């Protein structure tokens, strides 16, 4: 056969998609993006202490992590949650679709409400947890730590629903703390006092709409605000101006992380490994193994992972349990090994701190059943506290306790208190 000659393979016609792609090439020069609030955060980020949150430059701490924490508990704290992954899910089948893929009963989630939920793969292993906002009968927003677009799209086959990632388009702020309600009211968001916990409503802002929900990650009175990216700065300024006399402060992740631990909340890929990222298959977890069993609703119709989860329950195949621990003393037990009767290794602490609110040494730990499940006494943690280049090894008694570690009435009080 004769040698073929080469044909020029170029496509000649211009294409707007190609143009948009080409414009986006330059991202390689900025490995960590700024969020829509970045100009304000940079101005306040006196410590220049950044970390990578899903490709964004986010602050560990802005000026003083202790004071940032106390802003959450005593004043009002502003935390930029824009890097959180957000999906817009819309269509006549959106409710049925979300009911099919998430653990909780979405048909009972009314428009104007939010619920904390989780979703699993076919084997019943948790892909992620997150919050589902019902913005209208047919429109939802799903917020999560990890990214799930292929899974969400593939799961949508057969449903009249559209799924779009809107992380970059929508800026998010958490306003948390006892004075947060007063700040919003003073900023002129009339009617915000009517929001009960897990309610959401839309408010006018700068010729656009801001969605405010009474939700948060602190166990305190607090709100989350979502706004189109181009209205982010004016929203920030509006809140900061209104909150000046109520002690409003911008905060970084370290402070928020303390508050969430006091509230007993878990973080994907910190307290458990998500199913699409776990390289080692024994790290996968079912909802019952990370304290999310309460979400599983066997009464509702079929949902992803249902059969596997119910079978694991029936055949007692659940191998782990996530518990709250109260540890004697005051030295945090971060990543300590948990022992039964001081010698038998039964689990690992995933998060720990001295709680300034509870005045207790608290921790979240994963234990191997039956420890933490039917056997709940005689646990010990081995703390390796590095002090001036020496480990001070401590063996401390740990007690299984209910989460949250602190319960604040102001979180749920109606109407919210005017601090």
């Amino acid at each position, binding site marked *: 056969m004769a040698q073929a000659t080469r044909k020029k*393979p170029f496509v000649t016609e211009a294409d707007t998609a190609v143009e948009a792609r080409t414009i986006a*090439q330059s991202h*390689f020069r900025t490995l960590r993006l700024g969020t829509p609030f970045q100009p304000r955060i940079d101005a306040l980020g006196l410590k220049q202490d950044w970390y990578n949150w899903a490709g964004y430059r986010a602050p560990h701490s802005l000026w003083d992590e202790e004071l940032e924490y106390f802003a959450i508990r005593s004043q009002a704290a502003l935390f930029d949650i824009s890097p959180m992954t957000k999906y817009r899910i819309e269509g006549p089948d959106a409710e049925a679709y979300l009911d099919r893929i998430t653990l909780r009963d979405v048909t009972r989630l009314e428009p104007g409400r939010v619920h904390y939920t989780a979703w699993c793969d076919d084997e019943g292993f948790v892909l992620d947890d997150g919050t589902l906002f019902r913005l209208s009968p047919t429109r939802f927003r799903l917020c999560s730590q990890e990214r799930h*677009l*292929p899974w969400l799209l593939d799961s949508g086959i057969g449903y009249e629903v559209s799924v779009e990632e809107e992380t970059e388009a929508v800026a998010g702020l958490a306003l948390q703390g006892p004075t947060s309600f007063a700040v919003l009211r003073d900023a002129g968001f009339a009617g915000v006092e009517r929001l009960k916990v897990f309610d959401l409503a839309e408010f006018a802002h700068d010729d656009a709409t801001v969605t405010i929900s009474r939700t948060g990650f602190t166990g305190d009175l607090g709100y989350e605000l979502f706004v189109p990216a181009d209205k982010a700065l004016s929203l920030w300024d509006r809140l900061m101006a209104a909150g000046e006399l109520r002690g409003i402060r911008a905060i970084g992740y370290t402070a928020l992380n303390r508050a969430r631990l006091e509230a007993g909340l878990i973080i994907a890929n910190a307290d458990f490994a998500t199913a699409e990222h776990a390289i080692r*298959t024994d790290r996968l977890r079912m909802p019952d193994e990370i304290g999310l069993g309460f979400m599983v609703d066997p009464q509702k119709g079929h949902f992803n992972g249902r059969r596997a989860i119910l079978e694991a329950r029936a055949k007692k195949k659940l191998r782990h349990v996530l518990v709250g621990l109260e540890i004697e003393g005051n030295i945090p037990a971060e990543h300590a090994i948990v022992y039964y009767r001081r010698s038998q290794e039964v689990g690992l602490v995933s998060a720990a701190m001295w709680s300034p609110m509870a005045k207790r040494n608290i921790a979240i730990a994963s234990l191997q059943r039956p420890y933490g499940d039917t056997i709940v006494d005689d646990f010990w943690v081995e703390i390796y506290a590095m002090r001036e280049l020496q480990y001070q090894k401590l063996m401390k008694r740990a007690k299984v306790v209910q989460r949250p570690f602190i319960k604040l009435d102001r979180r749920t009080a109606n109407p919210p208190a005017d601090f």
Partner: protein
Amino acid sequence: MKAWDAIVIGGGHNGLVNACYLQRAGLNVLVVEKNDWVGGAATSRELTPGFLYSNCSYVCSLFRPEIMRDLELPRFGLQVISYEGGAVFTRDGDYLANYRDHDAHRREFARFSRRDAEAYDRYSRDVTRQCRFIQPLLMRTAPDPTSFKPRDLGELLYLGRKFAGLSAEEMALTLRFWTMSISDFLDEYFETDVIKANFALSGIIGTALGPMSPGTAYVLLHHYMGEVDGSVGAWGYARGGMGAVTKALAASFKASGGTIRTGAEVDRVLIRNGKAKGVVLAGGEEVYGKLVVSNADVKRTFLKLVEEKELPDTYLRRVRNFKIRGSSGKVNIALDSLPEFPALPKDSPVYRADMHFTDSIERMERAYDDWKAGRWSADPFLDMVIPTTLDPTMAPPGKHFMSCFVQYAPPKIDGRDWTDADRDGFTESVIAQIAEYSPGFRDRIVHMEVRTPREIEAEVGLTEGNIFQGELTFDQLLFNRPVPGYAQYRSPIGGLYMCGSSTHPGGGVMGAPGRNAAAEILRDLAKPTLHMSQAHDVI
């Protein structure tokens, strides 16, 4: 009449690794190399004044760190310069880059498909799971499943336990990985042509199969093996070209007292009473050795260096049928200035990384169709690097060396040998492709070396020019590589061993076959192997 303790035929990287380990165990070892230089397929040659050519292998990632450490290669001058990723140019004037930063990588993919950008995590999880399963096997001798020796049973048990330790999902994935085509495998994760092409290229390099041929998914794994548990990490350029790897090996070998004879081509292995006694060089000189190790591929070793009558007929037939089909060529180019690619921003790290022009699996498969028809690809697949963007020692200031790995090139053209005219046609298919993406490229060319399978076989000694000394398909792996029953570096001839890429775990500048063969030889000699590091842990 002196008899060496061991004679290693061929000074390629595996021959040298093997020789180093034997010499360090106290043996008196001679390496005989037909060329006037050592290196085999890992060489740096000054083919035009001022330019060093990595004229066969061209990047470094798979070389086992345990071997680098044992043989003190950094001390003997080896430096590997990591590079930052790579790109596929698209026909619409854009490109798809791979960046080392996870988020930059995702954003880059999202320019083409947000869905595929997010699918990468699951893909990378599955590939990593498989690499973790296979990587520990690289530095172990494959068990003989028909043997009842305690060690073989132990190794089989190890393999069985590793497999049994997998979840049902992983077992399914493992079987799929070892049998699927890379195209089908990628379809499970991605839907964008250029993104699939970007990953598929690792599935076809060095293999006479197309991206739609079953078995190519494993070839991809083989290329990812260097990246598990941080043992090596990124792909890199050996400073001074790939010859720096074998130069360091040769220096290490000599420092431990080894002897190398270059310009000494072996005509045949000297066999008496079914036992190797040495080698006969091309001039007729006989060199005696208590054992002989061949770094040459299995076909060259047993069809050219050993007389047929010495071999059992089944063995002979299996060696003849071993798949070692030539599929690629090399175009090595000296340039008087850095080529420009208008699609790439001038400050793009891609200039320092690997570049490709085949932006769909369809195009790759069409390129393979040409191979099947016995001709070089009209629209070839190129793996192109310009190492001088990171290594100034290989070219005069401002000038550059470019290495183009070219696929597909058949071992024979339409059933006959390659001619010089064929080679020129092959060259033109490559230069024309580059020039379409890089205006003025032809004018920058100072010198060129073109190697079709004909030149690779004649000059390097790789049968049919196959870079892996035999294809990495499941039927030719583990205890079937190269021949069932002879996967443990031994042969039907007493005292004749193999240590090249034809043996487990296969090709690439990895060094594992050379090391594993040394371990087997020392076992036969009842010599200690304390100077050989254990394989890195995968936990």
